[in-house]
């Protein structure tokens, strides 16, 4: 008895220490949407079924391994094929079991899940558009009160933490934090339109159970209906270049009343920013704003110092484009000039037209021409960018 008690105590301690490792996750995270709940349910069911098959087959095999050994002088039988009716019956059983599992036990619930997952339109009360770009997400509200709200969401983990060889303490949500969260109302079915500007991306929040590839030039759709208020985190899940690991997703699910307040506040903020495009900015303000925009959006490739990562990502310091003229004699921006390059991109360089507003483009261009070791001396005003867009 004493021995049994000791063993029991040992197991209890072992289990307790197991619990202490709270970071070990053994299954999908807690679902927050009906789709994720369904996915978890289907997953658990299938895992149980396949687990049982595995254990039964393994048990039969292990029995044979121990019982039918040469070292135990077991005499081999010489059956080659099922010969009697009984044997044929037993042979057909695994086939029948799998037929049943594949197309009934697993097949029928799987059918309903697929239909539910692909039904993006029924009962959807709002539409948002998500655009993936190297390496950030852009969110746009397409209808309702929030129509017109549009912003970019960038990784906000401090750069020194993601740099090679960082030894200090990392943030709690290291690599899973962004500057602008996507905000969704709780309980509403949101139809999500998905696209991309450059390469394939995949918008994936594990607790939502939906993931869909964002394809440049096409619209794909899925839906999300968050049932529980809270903050949800996810990541891009389609290899999209060197920043693939650095484009997280953060979603705040708010109760309707709070969501409405957020919409009002966000609209006001965006209106202010738009108004900024019409005033004349000083060079200092543009430079200060430009530095922020540059480090958030451009430094991934062109580096904080402007040195770039040649040959893939050219240096801006001393570059022909950043030191050349922006506008031609006719007052229009030059093809392959600085503004053209930022607005429209070329090859690996993305187009920023849809991502940055007039003020941000004007600031970052002014910063690139007068900072980063360049000293062209001119200033680009937001109004000029606004005009250039037309």
């Amino acid at each position, binding site marked *: 008895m004493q021995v049994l008690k000791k063993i029991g105590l040992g197991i209890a301690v072992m289990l307790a220490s197991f619990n202490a490792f709270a*970071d*070990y*996750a*053994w299954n999908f*995270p807690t679902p927050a949407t009906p789709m994720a709940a369904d*996915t978890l349910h*289907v*997953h658990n069911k*299938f895992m149980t079924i396949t687990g049982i*098959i*595995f254990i039964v*087959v*393994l048990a*039969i*095999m292990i029995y*044979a*391994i121990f019982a*039918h*050994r040469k070292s135990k002088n077991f005499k*081999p*039988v010489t*059956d*080659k*094929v099922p010969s009697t009716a009984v044997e044929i019956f037993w*042979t057909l059983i*695994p*086939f029948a*079991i799998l037929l049943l599992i*594949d197309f009934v036990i*697993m*097949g029928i619930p*799987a059918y309903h899940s697929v*239909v539910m997952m692909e039904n993006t339109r029924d009962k959807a009360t709002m539409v948002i558009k998500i655009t993936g770009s190297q390496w950030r997400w852009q969110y746009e509200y397409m209808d309702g009160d929030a129509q017109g709200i549009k912003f970019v969401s960038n990784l906000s983990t401090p750069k020194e933490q*993601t740099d090679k*060889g960082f030894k200090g303490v990392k943030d709690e949500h290291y*690599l899973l934090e962004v500057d602008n969260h996507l905000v969704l109302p709780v309980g509403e079915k949101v139809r999500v339109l998905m696209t991309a500007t*450059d*390469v*394939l991306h*995949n918008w994936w929040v594990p607790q939502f*159970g939906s*993931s*869909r*590839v964002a*394809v*440049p030039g*096409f619209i794909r759709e899925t839906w999300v209906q968050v049932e529980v208020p809270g903050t949800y985190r*996810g990541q891009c899940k*389609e*290899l*999209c*270049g*060197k920043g*693939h*690991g*650095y484009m997280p997703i953060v979603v705040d699910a708010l109760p309707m009343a709070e969501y409405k307040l957020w919409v009002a506040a966000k609209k006001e903020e965006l209106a202010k920013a738009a108004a900024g495009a019409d005033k004349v900015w000083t060079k200092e303000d543009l430079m200060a704003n430009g530095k922020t925009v540059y480090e958030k959006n451009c430094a991934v490739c062109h580096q904080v110092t402007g040195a770039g*990562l040649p*040959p*893939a990502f050219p240096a801006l310091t001393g570059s022909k484009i950043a030191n050349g003229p922006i506008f031609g004699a006719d007052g229009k921006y030059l093809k392959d000039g600085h503004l053209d390059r930022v607005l429209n991109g070329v*090859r690996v360089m993305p187009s920023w037209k849809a991502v940055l507003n007039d003020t941000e483009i004007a600031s970052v261009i002014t910063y690139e021409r007068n900072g980063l070791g360049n000293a062209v001396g001119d200033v680009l005003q937001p109004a000029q960018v606004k005009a250039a867009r037309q």
Partner: protein
Amino acid sequence: MSTTTVAHHEEHADHPSGIMRWLTTTNHKDIGTMYLTFSLIMFFIGGSMILAIRAELFQPGLQLLNPEFFNQLIGVHALIMIFAALMPAATGFANWMIPLQIGAPDMALPRLNNWGFWLLPPSAILLTLPFTLALFGIGDGALATGWTFYPPLSVQGGIGVDFAIFAVHLLGISSVLGSINIIVTLFNMRAPGMTLMKMPMFAWGWLITAFLLVATIPVLAGAVTMLLTDRHFGTHFFDAAGGGDPIMFQHLFWFFGHPEVYILLLPVWGFIPQILETFSRKPMYGYKAQVYSLWAIGALAVVVWAHHFFTAGMPVPALLYFMYSTMAISLPLAVLFFCWIKTMWKGSMSFETPMLFAVGWIILFGIGGLTGLVLADVAADAQYHNSYFVVAHFHYTLFAGGIMGIMAGTYYWLPKMTGHMYSEKLGKLHFWLTAISFNLTFIPQFFLGLAGMPRRIPDYALQFAEFNMISSIAAFVLGFSQLLFVYNIVSCARGGKKATDQVWEGAKGLEWTLPSPPPYHSFTEQPIIK
């Protein structure tokens, strides 16, 4: 070549020596040895790449690699392991064993055989050269898109993509040549009396593999050529702006890519039953059922490709079709598993290293197969897709199901090929180290995937730290255990206890009737099968 002018046909052993022997050889055993050696070398090159990656993923934060370099390593690791380690190993065994098993003096097309092999080293060089070029400031390194070449990322990529495209072309030509040779050999060179339904199972596995290769490699070649013209000649096959579609590439790629999985596995499904019957001292159970199952799997292989990208967006009927057809693959596989286990059942088993690998192979490949069944479900696939769950799944099929199978075959035939017995003690140690560290590497990755860790990321959030650390440590044990394998093979080739003709007590088949090692030219007189 000497054989064209020399009149005495009874003895052709006067081949050139030194490097010229290997460059000009048309002997199936020489070419088989070269394939196997090449495969072993590339296994270590691909393996060291992944160890660099596991070292980086040992803990959160960037320690050793830049994200760009990380992305290059994952793609080249996969291409090397699939095209330069696993496929040549299977072709090496085919070269060595198919003529011996069917009683033929050599392969049907020996010169083509030589060419097929010598295309491989240049393509391996093409694949890895961009790493070296980048050191000298030319280009920005190797292909960084993952082994799947998905556009538009691959259209955007640097010269590494072009190198990889040409490497794939060469590898593809080599595979098609090898396949044609095997098909011709099997249809024309079987010993009198050996009907198709009396062929050894390994020959059957390879025959279906060869048909799959001939059917699908041209599609891959077409797809990557379209990619090449998109990159350099202004076509828009995969660019929406010009009326193309990036997802079309995925359809073309996986039309090749899914059969490719069976191309890697079918030869193994061929010789594992032979190993089982040898060490169970009992004839293979359900030969016909196994042959028909192999055909069924070969046929299903070419109609299920889209399950590799369920999340890319498809109409509901297409999703349902690809889901159910994928699940259907489990039916012939269940028959195979049943036959394998029934072959062992009531046998008189002994557990030498090949048998250990074969039994371990059944269990681990079983895990790969069952998780594949779960992955077929479209709804849950939204979670699994491109997560570490998938990484763990396909390593259970390709490392356990492919490479551990090849190891079983190596230990099984090594005494026949070299004429010496390998060290059974080291072989068993190698098995246990491989099996245990393999599981410790990849079981944590199942949980990482479920918890939400995407694949192909160079750095990860803190909640994934513990499992990644276990996986990395185990990966290093797994990697270094393979040195035992090399040591065992090399010392076996150099000497050791003489092997008998039959080698294994229960071994049956024509290859075991020849001396160990078989003479340079075997079966100068055709054996007759009753």
